[in-house]
């Protein structure tokens, strides 16, 4: 599995994500600076990490979505390359319109930083292939703007098409319908607020994130 991690000024989960990808796939990802206008060839996965790109100026993810590299990410996504956006990466993907909806300030105003229970709603995607449908997992969250909002028609469509991949078991940040992670229409782009890369080995205390990367490896690692 060939992967790349996009690095923006203000990204701070890029190294954790690279470590997780290297641990699971045995191959270190390419670290791609946001000013690049192209991506390495033969990529299977593009990962957009958490952090505070551009200091969250204007709106979280808004400036990063306009970075030169995002045009290449958009093209790769259209070709079917897997794209995983975590936390700020999810915000960047919504601002880049690769995913519908928007992530607003948490309903309770406070930054939320704790482990949360999640339900895997769709276990058919490449990202969730190693989970069981309806399974409850625990991953850490750490965000200020994780309150997912979209209009009712969009939410209904996401639900109807099985594109709500992950849902908070209990309200965490005010997200509509407790949505924690969504897929694009083609199923090759996932945005999620929880941090799977912070839960991949025993030393992390939690390991439920590991199967997300293993599922990707399993799906991608065996070319059709």
């Amino acid at each position, binding site marked *: 599995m060939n992967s790349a991690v996009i690095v923006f000024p203000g990204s701070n989960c890029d190294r954790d994500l690279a470590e997780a990808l290297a641990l699971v796939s045995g191959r270190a990802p390419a670290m791609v600076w946001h000013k690049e206008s192209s991506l390495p060839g033969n990529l299977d996965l593009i990962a957009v990490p958490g952090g505070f790109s551009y200091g969250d100026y*204007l709106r979280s993810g808004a400036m990063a979505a306009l970075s030169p590299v995002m045009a290449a990410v958009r093209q790769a996504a259209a070709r079917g390359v897997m794209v995983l956006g975590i936390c700020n990466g999810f915000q960047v993907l919504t601002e880049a319109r690769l995913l519908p909806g*928007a992530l*607003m300030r948490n309903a309770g105003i406070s930054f939320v930083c704790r482990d949360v229970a999640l339900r895997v709603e769709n276990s058919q995607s490449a990202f969730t292939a190693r989970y069981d449908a309806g399974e409850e997992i625990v991953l850490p969250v750490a965000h200020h703007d994780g309150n997912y909002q979209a209009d009712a028609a969009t939410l209904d469509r996401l639900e109807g098409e099985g594109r709500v991949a992950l849902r908070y078991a209990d309200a965490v940040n005010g997200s509509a319908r407790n949505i924690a992670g969504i897929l694009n229409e083609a199923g090759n782009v996932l945005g999620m607020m929880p941090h799977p890369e912070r839960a991949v080995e025993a030393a992390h205390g939690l390991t439920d994130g590991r199967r997300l990367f293993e599922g990707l490896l399993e799906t991608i690692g065996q070319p059709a």
Partner: protein
Amino acid sequence: MKIRVYVTLKAGVLDPQGKAIHHALEGLGFAGLRDVRAGKLIELDAEDGVDDGQVEEMCRRLLANTVIENYRIERMEGAA
């Protein structure tokens, strides 16, 4: 020319910051507020050739996220 762009949350979208400000104002003893909504003011110092269409485009592509926000453009005629 100075152009002001006001970005506000759409009606019906919960505004956590506005709500917190509302509570804080009540805490200060100010009564009679039904609701408080917070938004952004962005001031553009534009050359005369910048037309309304271009400012609209700026709003749609960057200044506002039209999924959750509305924008209003105000030209400050005569302002230096």
